[in-house]
């Protein structure tokens, strides 16, 4: 079953290569992502029932990977539905040529393939090159519009991403070194074997390994100060790709989580990893707070908000109590869903108003009634207002910080979150007031299927904010046990 996850994107790419009509390409994309989601659902059920799945020698799916994997698959479904309307509009506005559609879809499904591959292998080395491959497959997608800004963003994306990931490779090499003499040669870099023998690994080497892996994958996860590619890439990439690379941050965080599980078991405490993760986390939140307060471009603002939330997840993992890890994993899901919703609505906004400047947009609620309303409420949600799901998980993380007696740290953390709330309110709520002066923008929704997706996401984040579905809770608890090493 698990191999379908890899086969479907490959078949889709082959089909795209042989079709010319845009209408057929849209259909292929829609059916491929639907199949992927169905496969994902079946695998999730199996994981809930059996705990973990192994197949084909190098593949391994447990509750930790299925959480991130499901986020990717849901994002894929959303993107494929949204892309149809989005791309047609772009072609109509002559921003993209019809021939580029095929390149877009081929690269998008290669991107999905590498993301899925990174999440279902147990060999840390293969995981590494799959994550590196995500950068490469999405580089041209970031630069798809081929103007000055897009090329600049794509260049920075490729260079910073590849160098970061190269540093992570050094970490993987150290991880390999620490296990020599402990593991059999066919088990080298196998995450499960490393995890089971973690007590026997060489501590001083594994510490170095963790440092390099944190900095390396931290670059891909968007932790400050390695975050600089994110605002550029997000503001220049087409909206569907913006959403997918938002999900990609989780995959990098997932690689860090896997390493944390090994290192903490090896050391017998979370002091070493915890301090580092908390420091990187709070620095990310601080950076995001400063840039959100002074931001003039709404897409960049959303990008900085992603950096903030990755910081929150890092802090949650760093505190390393059962509650905080639960909070971090739950936050990963909530943040991805809420942010996806915001990305898609910001895409609608961008297509309607044709500007990324906050000050040039007025009267969103009148011109785009549904998208506008959802966007407004989504901003409250992402800033952490109840009753939405981001509030629930942020609150869990905050509670766990105070529970673990980090009073001062918790205080700073809450203060920064409040600053970000204020920053989002001050900057973005301007867009909703007033009337649009120039009369050439007609009121009315564009991209109806996309807007339906946005509304559905909104319902989901509201419901999960009020109560967590049983299956999801079980999955997170199982994943939490894996990370905690119980």
């Amino acid at each position, binding site marked *: 079953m698990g191999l379908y996850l890899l086969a479907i994107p490959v078949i889709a790419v082959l089909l795209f290569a042989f079709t010319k009509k845009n209408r057929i390409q849209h259909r292929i994309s829609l059916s491929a992502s639907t199949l992927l989601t169905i496969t994902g659902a079946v695998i999730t059920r199996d994981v809930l029932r059996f705990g973990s799945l192994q197949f084909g020698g190098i593949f391994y799916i447990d509750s930790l990977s299925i959480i991130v994997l499901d986020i990717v698959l849901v994002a894929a479904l959303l993107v494929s539905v949204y892309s149809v309307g989005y791309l047609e509009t772009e072609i109509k506005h002559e921003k993209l040529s019809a021939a580029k559609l095929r390149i877009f879809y081929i690269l998008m499904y290669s991107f999905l393939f590498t993301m899925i591959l990174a999440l279902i292998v147990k*060999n840390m*080395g*293969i995981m*590494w*090159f799959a994550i*590196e*491959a995500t950068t*490469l497959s999405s*580089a*041209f997608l970031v*630069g798809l519009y*081929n*103007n*000055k*800004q897009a*090329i*600049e*963003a*794509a*260049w*920075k994306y*490729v*260079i910073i991403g*590849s*160098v970061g990931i*190269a540093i992570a*490779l*050094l970490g*993987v*090499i150290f991880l*390999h*070194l620490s296990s*020599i003499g402990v593991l059999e040669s066919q088990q*080298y*870099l196998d995450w499960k074997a490393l995890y089971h023998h973690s007590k026997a690994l*060489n501590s*001083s*080497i594994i*510490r*170095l390994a963790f440092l390099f892996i944190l900095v390396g994958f931290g670059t891909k996860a968007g932790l400050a100060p390695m975050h600089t590619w994110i*605002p*550029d890439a997000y*503001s*220049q990439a087409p909206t569907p790709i913006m959403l997918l690379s938002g999900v990609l941050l989780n995959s990098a965080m997932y690689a860090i989580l896997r390493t944390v599980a090994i290192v903490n078991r090896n050391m017998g405490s979370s002091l070493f990893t915890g301090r580092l993760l908390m420091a990187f986390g709070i620095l990310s939140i601080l950076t995001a707070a400063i*840039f959100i307060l*002074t*931001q*003039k*471009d709404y897409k*960049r603002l959303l990008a900085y908000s992603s950096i903030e939330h990755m910081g929150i997840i890092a802090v949650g993992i760093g505190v390393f109590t059962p509650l905080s890890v639960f909070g971090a994993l739950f936050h990963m899901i909530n943040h991805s869903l809420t942010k996806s919703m915001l990305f898609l609505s910001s895409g609608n906004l961008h297509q309607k108003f044709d500007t990324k400047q906050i000050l040039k947009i007025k009267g969103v609620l009148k011109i785009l009634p549904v998208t506008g309303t959802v966007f407004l409420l989504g901003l409250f949600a992402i800033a952490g207002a109840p009753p939405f799901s981001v509030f629930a998980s942020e609150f869990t993380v905050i509670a766990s910080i105070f529970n673990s007696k980090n009073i001062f740290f918790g205080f700073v953390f809450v203060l920064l979150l409040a600053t970000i709330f204020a920053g989002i309110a001050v900057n973005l709520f301007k867009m909703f007031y007033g009337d649009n002066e120039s009369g050439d923008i007609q009121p009315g929704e564009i991209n109806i299927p996309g807007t339906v997706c946005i509304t559905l996401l909104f319902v989901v984040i509201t419901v999960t904010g009020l109560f967590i579905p049983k299956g999801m809770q079980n999955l997170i608890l199982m994943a939490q046990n894996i990370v905690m090493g119980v």
Partner: protein
Amino acid sequence: MSELFNSLSILILLSSFILMANKRVKSYIKTFRFQSFLIAFAAGIIGVKSILEEGRFDVLLVCLVIIILKVIYIPNLLNKMQLNVEYKVEKDFILNIPILIMGCCAIVMFTYFSLSGTDIVSRGAINNQIVNSISLTLIGLFFMISRKKAIGQIIGFLEIENGLFITALYMTGGMPLIVDLGTFIDLLTAVMIMGVMVFRINEKFESINIDKLNNLKG
């Protein structure tokens, strides 16, 4: 045998100093080719040794891939690239060369001190080799920030990759084969993608000075 490895590792480190002292893009490529050749040589010796002692063919296979990829194909690709985009010779570095070389020395000392705390170095035989190869990686990073042209950055990235490979080779006798091959595929794609982007940058900005990539801020 270990003396041979020691001297090879010092030569590789030296090649990174030479790379740092190069002024023209053309000479970067030459030095890079030389460095890759030294690395392929080291991999070849270890490969032959592992065939004779354990009957493993994988290191020799990897050595072959390095020769094809890093000694022949990528330098040629870069040469072609720079012929197409480089129409006048400009000064490419920000600081002057003596300062850059001093910086490299500082990096080697820094690596030595940070590794001396762990028991990799105190384990004996492999100590200096590891310091040298990790220094190579860091010097690669330093090279990237010291050059202004896009091709300079690609060379820096390749040097980092070289450093990583030689680190893995000296410390662990090579990574599992599938990981090594995956790394090479990634490397090749990365260089090709960067190459295409260099063309696009040259086309839109009329230069490959990355100083000019300053539209996106804040």
